[in-house]
């Protein structure tokens, strides 16, 4: 009984929750996305039209196919409000298409500070965050 409880507690602690009580980390949940079949990168080093900086400020922000695949696989889901209000926004992003094994496709976008979004062909939009994801163009992970 004690062992079962311990296993349950460990399993719960391993789920993506974040929310460190500071009010600056979003509550995160699993995306439950199926395995990825293909990834396309449409735009790299794109500067958001919302940015007041020069359009070429993001030219160095490039992600590899493997980095995009890893991001979509590892990222957690956050609410739209937390995406807009709690996560750091970056003017630099990359975007493209993804298809999953069960036939659903989507348009992904990943920002330089590890926030991202996924518009799925079933009508849903997932807001993503992956603080542990690694890519050459991401800043170092938070300490």
């Amino acid at each position: 009984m004690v062992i079962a409880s311990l296993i349950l507690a460990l399993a719960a602690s391993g789920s993506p929750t974040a929310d460190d009580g500071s009010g600056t980390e979003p509550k995160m949940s699993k995306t439950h996305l199926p395995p990825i079949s293909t990834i396309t990168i449409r735009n790299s080093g794109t500067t958001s039209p919302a940015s007041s900086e020069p359009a070429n400020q993001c030219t160095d922000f490039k992600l590899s196919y493997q980095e995009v695949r890893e991001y979509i696989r590892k990222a957690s889901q956050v609410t739209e409000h937390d995406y807009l209000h709690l996560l750091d926004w970056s003017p630099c992003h990359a975007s493209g298409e993804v298809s999953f094994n069960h036939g659903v496709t989507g348009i992904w976008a990943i920002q330089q500070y590890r926030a991202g979004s996924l518009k799925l062909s079933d009508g849903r939009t997932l807001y993503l965050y992956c603080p542990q994801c690694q890519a050459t163009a991401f800043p170092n992970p938070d300490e």
Partner: protein
Amino acid sequence: MLHVNRNGHILNARVRLAARPLIERDILHRIRGIIVHQTGGTSGSSSLSSYTVKNANGAHFLIDKDGTIYQTASLFRQTWHVGRLRARCIAEYRCTPTELYALRRFNPKAEHRMEMAKNVPQRYPANEDSVGIEIVGAAVAGKGQNPAEQGVYEIVNAQQNASLRWLIAELTSTFGIPMTEIFRHPVVSRKNPTEARSALW
């Protein structure tokens, strides 16, 4: 001067109570500043309903498209609306050499931690000492673009700005908040710079 009841709710004909207790957090001991936001959504009703789910976050007030002011959280409780703080000393050109050295590497979490060791006005107001005002307004993107990355926030309309101006005047006089401590969200945190850009007070 506002009349605030024992629950932290404003008693005034211009403010409609739409209490959403699920967005309330710890006690708000002192209000040192006000942060002005835009919701990112198209309607007030969608924001109000999003505040009713577990773990929801929001701000203290919501100003709808027609200028209606809703109070969604008690003024005695914090809400989580700010995110990580930027270093205020950089924007105000007054960082010490020690601060500049600490900020040489991009690390928003460490930067926030460093800021939270200071008090307002040495840092920007944060969740623990600010009131948040949300103005209903979407981030609009071109066809095929995702508003999350490529959206530009719509203009705050005249009715919304009139309500914002009134609410900020009342809050600042009631709680003794200096007008220098009212900020648009992208000033205090790394956010889409068009958020609340057209908000006036």
